[in-house]
């Protein structure tokens, strides 16, 4: 199978899908096999919320080679309203105006063109809410 097809067929890649531990209720994205909180092995998938708050962030100024054309760009941890936390790139905002605690919206955006055939890959990214 082509790597790009494996990528596309991972359910959590292109859906707003996180998992919740059936035993203790802790939420995760991406999904896990074992809950680090309680050791539980049963999870249910659920639709993650669309909005959350910026928990912390940094601005990457020296980037890995495949992202060097995007630098400087921001990476942040977003805390959703239901307690789920997730890391992702922050786009469409003014880097200087980013503030811890500000509201963010989850979107799908292009990440990169993969390999020699330039297959496009997409992923979750975050946009400051007023944009």
């Amino acid at each position: 199978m082509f790597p790009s097809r494996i990528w596309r067929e991972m359910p959590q890649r292109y859906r707003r899908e996180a998992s919740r531990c059936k035993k203790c209720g802790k939420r995760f994205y991406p999904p896990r096999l074992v809950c680090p909180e309680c050791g539980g092995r049963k999870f249910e998938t659920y639709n993650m919320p669309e909005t959350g708050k910026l928990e912390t962030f940094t601005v990457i100024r020296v980037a890995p080679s495949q992202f060097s054309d995007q630098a400087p760009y921001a990476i942040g941890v977003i805390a959703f309203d239901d307690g789920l936390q997730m890391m992702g790139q922050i786009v469409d905002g003014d880097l200087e105006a980013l503030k811890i605690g500000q509201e963010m919206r989850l979107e799908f955006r292009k990440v990169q063109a993969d390999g020699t055939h330039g297959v496009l890959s997409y992923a979750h990214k975050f946009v400051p809410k007023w944009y």
Partner: protein
Amino acid sequence: VFVEKGVLVADPLQILDCSPIPDGAAACILTTVELAKKMKRPYVRVTASAMATDTIALAQRDSLCWLKSTELAGQRALKMAGRKISDIDMVEVHDCFSIAEAIVTESLGFFKPGQGVKAAVAGETALDGKIPVNPSGGLKAKGHPVGATGIGQIVEIVKQLRGQAENGRQIKGNPKVGMTQNMGGSGASAVVHILEVA
């Protein structure tokens, strides 16, 4: 954090906050105390070897200002060696970035949460400080040849315990108990060793 001027890599870390990744090598010989005695060569004892893990994803951790894997591995190592944190005479820690040293020294229990940077600035981690941290220079000053870094830490503690550290970095007062802390995956796994004089 510690560095005021230079090229920003990822706010607030400047290039001199980041350890350089050079080439390097390190080796040690592991054997039983009985064999070491027969060989009539100076040796030190490994009194603890402990590991612990955490999630790789930073967003899934309880705190971004704490390294739980390092805390757990440190506690396990102290228990294994029958030591308290105050028994440790010096420690080599994985300061891949300047901030990592502070979080590690706090997570191991040498300083209270949030006090690691202040302690370092006050000289408590210097060669003649309360707890010398990274007498070798650490990853930041000595370099971080990734595969050799962990054994490099052991080599430094062995030299310190034998009183053979070069270039004026030997810790005074005959140190007897040393600790090393190594980690990978931004602290997803951590390993702590305790070495003691023969």
